[in-house]
């Protein structure tokens, strides 16, 4: 199986640490990159765009972040969608269980699913194996 790249966009360091640990324990070839907020993620993805191979396959996007939150990131991403040389699958990964957040995520057809934190081993495994049914 070809190795995949997963991108975490989140300001919660502990969450990122734990998620990385979980992925590592899966013992797959999955690469993990992470950004602290939407703006940094956009900058980073633009840099990676020169080599489409290094762009992530999957993005886990938090909603509540400083500087540029998840929704703002989505708008910027959509405005620049054609620039990216690779199709990336985006999931919202938020601690929010508020209905309006879930509904809002559904208004973006580019968002493939809504994951509620914490994200455990099985969920992330299915995600990487592209077996996710949400």
């Amino acid at each position, binding site marked *: 199986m070809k190795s995949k790249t997963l991108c975490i966009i989140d300001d919660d360091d*502990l*969450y990122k*640490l734990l998620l990385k640990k979980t992925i590592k324990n899966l013992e797959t070839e999955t690469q993990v990159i992470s950004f602290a907020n939407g703006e940094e993620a956009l900058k980073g993805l633009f840099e990676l765009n020169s080599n489409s191979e290094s762009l992530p396959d999957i993005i886990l996007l938090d909603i*509540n972040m*400083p500087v540029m939150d998840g929704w703002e990131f989505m708008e910027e991403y959509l405005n620049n969608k054609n620039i990216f040389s690779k199709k990336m699958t985006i999931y919202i990964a938020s601690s929010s269980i*508020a209905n309006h957040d879930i509904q809002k995520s559904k208004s973006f057809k580019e968002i493939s699913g809504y994951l509620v934190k*914490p994200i455990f081993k099985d969920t992330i495994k299915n995600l990487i194996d592209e077996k996710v049914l949400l």
Partner: protein
Amino acid sequence: MFHLKNHVLKENLDLNTKDFNKQIDILVFDQDTVLSHINTALKDLSNYQFTLHNSTDNEEFKRMIKSLKPGIIISELHLNEVDGKEMLNYCRMVYPDIPYIIFSSHSCNKSALHFLELGAADFLTKENILALPATIYKVLRQSFEKHQIKEAKKQRWEDAQRFKGLIEHSFDPVITYNDSGEITYASPAIKRVLGYNVEEFIGTNVTKHIHPEDLIKRESKFKKLIQSSNSYATIDEERLLHKDGHYIWVKAIISDGRLIPGIQGFMTNFRDITETVKSKKALEKTLKDLTDYKIALDESSIVGIANLGGKIVYANEELVKISKFTGDELLGSDYRLFNSGEHSILFYLKIWNTISSGQIWKGELKLKAKDNTFFWVNMTVVPFLDNRNKPYQYIVVMRDITLRKLKTIDLHNTVDLLSNQNNRLLNFSYIVSHNLRSHTSNIQNLINYLEQTDDEEEKLEMMQHLKNVTNALDDTMYNLNEVVSIQSGTEMKIEEIPIKALINQVLKVLKSQISKSNAQIEIEVKTNLSVKYNRSYLESIFHNLILNSIKYKHPDRVPKIKIESRTENNFTILSISDNGIGIDLNKHKDKLFGMYKTFHNNNDSRGLGLFMSKNQIEAMGGKIEVSSQVDQGSTFEIYIKQEKPKN
């Protein structure tokens, strides 16, 4: 006696016979031999031209009378077996106006008398021919006088007919009546005006036809007429009873005709003025209605009238009452007298444009009374247009809607309050789902690890993380509690706080941050300005805002912070402006005052300051507003509600 002098005859006849024919045909019923004698005799009457005709045949004679119409007939008593009596009878019957003189060869007194009785003008014997001119003159004179009388009679008759016609065909009725009011004459027009035939009207009493209410007036006029030297009296309006039972209006003139022959009583002519009176009464009613409308309007509404220049020319009691100005102060003033400052010049201009183009304006206005209190009115301005549809004045009708307006404002405030509370509730839900749950989800995750790992070192690491998360959760809970206590307004102590002193105290606390950043702080607040507020809130608000201005200073400039104050619509407004990096309000305005919202990568940002400040300001009944430009700076304005002026 028969030899009358010419001049006498001439004089007499000439004087009176202006229109009398002087060419006189004389038809003689006799032998033609007698004509020369007559001719000779007639020379004495030289003023006349006589033409003599004669016949001896009675049938011819009759024809000649008919064709000739002679002025005089001279006839023999008997001629050719024709009896002169028969001829005389014929002439008297058919031509009675032609004088018939018997000129006989025989003298017989008995016959003469007989003929004169039958209508002969005279009887003369031929022996007495010298008397013929005198006889002719006498006959002519008699004939002339007869003619004159006839003419005069004819004239009199024509006059009478004319006057009778004038009265009988006159459009307006004329009646006469005697001292007791009994009607002695009525012209036919009475039928048209009162519906009576002349015959049935005559004999009735005048008073019977007059409206009882008008009778008194009529009688006093009548009395005056009799006592005064005037010959007539006028009654401008009087009601007469029509035969049908309805009353009509007339104008009547009563004349005293007691000394006039043929009248010997009083005359009244009158004219039907029902239509005029009706339209006059209708006009009077319209006028009265208008006056009543005006009274009703004045009683029920606030009314003013402005001239073309907008100056007040009329103000009713209600306007005086509500505006508290005196009538004199109102007159000559314009709308600016009531300007409350609520509406823009443009608003007034719009009204003016509407009404000066002849259209009605309706709307609600806040106005100012003399004592600087305010009142709200629902106003309608109606331009009065002249016949060219140009306004010549404006009537302003207003209704006091102050109570309703205040209630509406109260309602708006309530709605604002509710929506504020709703927003806070939403905000709270956001805090719970993001801030609290982010910690609990981490805790769940950590516990999951702890359960699954056997690695002691990893367990220790997880325990450490767990401790940190628990502390963070506790912090959040603590902050939330603080917010909730602000929002529920518990333990709120309100006191009079001098602004300048409070700012100085805050600056003292922030001394180290200020000196480290070299910030320049300028305070332009009135020395004696003070507000009623909760002290710790106001300290916290200033602390947060000044600290923000220092935290988000522009990297290229020395921070300059300016604190100012002003007053607007019952609010004291304190503003804090800086020259910092600014905020992109298009992007962040909605979230600026949210909990745990940060917009800059700044390690000190906790996303709590503005959230807390906003809650504190709103809990005190005010609001906070922000204006900002990226790279230029930001201004925060704190609205502090002033104490309500006592009503």
